[in-house]
């Protein structure tokens, strides 16, 4: 059975992609999962993989071409399968030289009828699935309604039903992959893609929550943000780093690693902050998936440390390093930069004392980390001491997080950062 190759939404925000190079040529055998081509998205250069076995019969789109998500870019089929109907109005690229068999085969077969292998030769064998006629997608009535409702473009969906028919589960799978064809003015935000087996809890909105959300949105933009700033004493974190390093290079961690670990731990105690605003409900996550903003030459990207609450300092440190490196090399896969439940942005290394970060929706908060600075402070005994101090500012989505809730989170974070020993409990 033929498999249509579409330009896929390789990142959640991708609307079109540039086909950089074809890695398989027409006539090459391909297996499901093999890389067919490289595609440049708005975020990175990604791999377009085959979703069926057979021969890459047709490169519908030439290298260098930019195509919208859902555009037919190629066809995988059996070597002798008639793909003319699949191509529909698409003119064969490179005319006769490219794939003469594809276009002329059916006509020839019809002319020399007796010799042609009848498509239904072996009756008991599973018949080759009939292929959708050009221009009309085979789709179940229910799937069509679901697609209309959710804005999924049927052209971008590969059917899994009998004969390649698009059925309910295909639309559900397309929705789970993320917004494919976006409805421009969708009032309620679609749920962000969630990894399979993910533990989370959807909390229906109470009336008071709805009113807060509505009023505050009217007052200040679509995300009514407020900011909370706090300054922490990093003396004990500094001591801990020194003590750890004394045990060997393997125990070397940065201030940022400790802050990430502390944020992850604090979030487990404040599920209201570790959440997504979904328009009609709030989704609290069972695990902490910590986004960390990374500046690259192309712009900002936020890779995710999944289940950060379950990971030790050393793991977080190693993962943060790897993700940052991959981000700068544009090698992040979509699943590595989607699905965060809360994010952290650090401009301390650029000597920014403090700043406010912009929430990455549908998350409900982001923590901006400033530079660590030696400051003179009044000690408990009234004397002066010098301490490394850190200023953090949390941006909160007031629709989901009230002032006191955000403040309580920062209190917990302060306790953890000023007493990093607690992180090992």
């Amino acid at each position, binding site marked *: *059975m033929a498999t249509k190759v579409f330009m896929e939404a390789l990142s959640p925000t991708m609307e079109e992609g540039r086909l950089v190079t074809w890695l398989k040529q027409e006539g090459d055998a391909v297996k499901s999962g093999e890389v067919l081509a490289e595609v440049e998205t708005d975020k990175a250069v990604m791999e377009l993989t085959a979703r069926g076995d057979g021969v890459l019969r047709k490169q519908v789109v030439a290298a260098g071409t930019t195509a919208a998500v859902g555009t037919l870019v190629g066809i995988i089929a059996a070597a002798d399968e008639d793909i003319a109907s699949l191509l529909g109005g698409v003119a064969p690229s490179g005319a006769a030289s490219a794939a003469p068999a594809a276009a002329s085969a059916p006509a020839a077969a019809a002319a020399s009828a007796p010799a042609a292998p009848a498509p239904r030769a072996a009756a*008991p*064998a*599973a018949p080759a699935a009939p292929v959708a006629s050009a221009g009309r997608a085979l789709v*179940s*009535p*229910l*799937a069509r*309604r*679901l697609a209309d*409702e959710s804005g999924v473009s049927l052209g971008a969906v590969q059917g899994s039903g*009998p004969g390649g028919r698009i*059925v*309910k589960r295909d639309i559900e799978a397309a929705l789970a992959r993320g917004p494919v064809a976006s409805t421009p003015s969708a009032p309620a935000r679609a749920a962000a893609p969630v990894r399979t087996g993910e533990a989370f809890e959807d909390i229906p909105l109470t009336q008071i929550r709805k009113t807060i959300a509505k009023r505050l949105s009217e007052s200040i933009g679509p995300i009514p943000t407020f900011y909370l700033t706090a300054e922490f004493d990093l003396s004990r974190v500094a001591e801990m780093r020194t003590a750890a390093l004394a045990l060997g290079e393997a125990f070397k961690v940065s201030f940022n690693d400790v802050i990430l670990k502390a944020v992850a731990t604090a979030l487990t105690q404040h599920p209201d902050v570790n959440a997504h605003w979904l328009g009609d409900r709030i989704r609290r996550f069972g695990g902490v998936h910590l986004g960390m903003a990374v500046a690259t030459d192309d712009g900002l990207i936020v890779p995710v440390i999944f289940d950060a609450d379950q990971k030790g300092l050393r793991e977080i440190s190693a993962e943060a390093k790897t993700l940052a490196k991959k981000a700068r090399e544009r090698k992040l896969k979509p699943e590595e930069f989607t699905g965060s439940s809360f994010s952290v942005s650090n401009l301390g290394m650029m000597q920014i004392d403090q700043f406010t970060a912009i929430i990455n929706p549908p998350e409900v908060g982001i923590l901006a980390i400033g530079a660590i600075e030696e400051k003179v402070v009044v000690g408990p005994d009234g004397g002066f001491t010098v301490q490394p101090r850190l200023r953090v500012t949390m941006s909160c989505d007031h629709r989901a997080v009230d002032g006191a809730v955000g403040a309580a989170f920062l209190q917990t974070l302060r306790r953890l950062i000023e007493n990093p020993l607690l992180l090992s409990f």
Partner: protein
Amino acid sequence: MANFDVIYLGGGPAGYVGALRSAQLGQSVAVVEREGLGGTCVLWGCIPAKALLEAASIAQKVAKGKEFGVTAEKVTLDYGVAMKRSRQVSAQNSKGVEFLFKKNKITWLKGTGVLGSNKTVKVTAADGTVETHTATKGVVIATGSRVKGLPQIGLELDKSLVLSSDEALTLDKAPATLAVIGAGAVGCEFADVFNAFGSKVTILEVMPRILPVEDEDCSVELAKSFKKRGIEVITGAKLGTIKKGKTNVTIPVEVNGEKKELTFDKVLVAAGRAPNIEHIGLKEAGVQTTERGFIKINERFETSVKGIYAIGDVAGPPMLAHKGSREGHVVADILAGHTHHPVNYGNIPNATYCHPEVASIGLTEGQCKEKGLKYTIGKFPFSANGRARTSGETEGFVKVIRDEKHGEILGAHIIGAHATEMIHEFAVARENEYTVEEIDLAIHAHPTLSEAIAEAVLDSMGKMLHA
């Protein structure tokens, strides 16, 4: 000693259909079966029971004949004759499977099979000869299930007073009084048969309603109909330890705190089936079972041992012939390396052949509520259907549960004459993901019972025409 591509252990509806499909795909196939081909379904279940239900139906129709101007006098009821006919029908069907085996060159290994290592099966024939056969692609366990009785309250099957459906199917005459324990499909069907043949039947069900897996509306309607015909229906019944006399059985029954003792000539145990996992070498082969005693399988019917598969009743509920047959078909495709459509477990019809018949597919209204789905109900009574009036079978209704937003047919429930035939309109619709609108658009012939489906569907959209 012979080599086959596939060996099926059991020749019931799962194993024999799998064997036919395997043979059709060019595989060499053997089926190990000690009894006749066709399994419980053909020999001791679906087929003979339906032959008896047909007899019951004729008895009921004759009784109503007068109002149609057809008066039969001196009508006699003879369960023995009906039983003998049902055995003939059974034997015919079994022979039919035998013929299909010959036609498809499937080897019937007559005897008892035990799993060996490396996809071998040791078969012991009735005369004691033992042969070991090898399957190159896979051994498929399809040994089915059996009635297990309720030994915890003394209801051990004894073949004389405490019967399973097996013995009920071979009684010479209907008992004067009969208790049917368990009001699932089997219990309701036998209650129907023996009531029609003159027994005083009492149904005892521990759950709060009969046909507990069906939609509650259907349970209520059937109980109403049964009571009208003189079948006593006792639900929410706690049974005490029974006392067996020489010719009768006394059962202590407690309902809503009220205790009484009921005495019957015979007791039919129609509750509890157990998978046949014993004596086939499961443990020795390392095949794991679930907590409930079924063989553990994955979505490709593979057991915990490579090369050993399981399908049908022994591989888990629902224990229905048509579910087993479909699994047989699919496992044959898998073993032959063909692309297969996975079994759609959410779309298996239920059918109970008592009068009125009850059939359903998909979710019940109770299940929709539990899942928090938003739905609307469409319901049309047969009393408002022309065809039902002509035949005087106006009991029952069609009920369709429609997803409020997208019109998906979440479930459909029919109680009435020929319900088990009519349910397949919904089976096809659901399999193809048609919504209620497509059913409405399809023109239904007039006058037919199926028009009630079209009307129920219209009702779910608030547009019913004929009521």
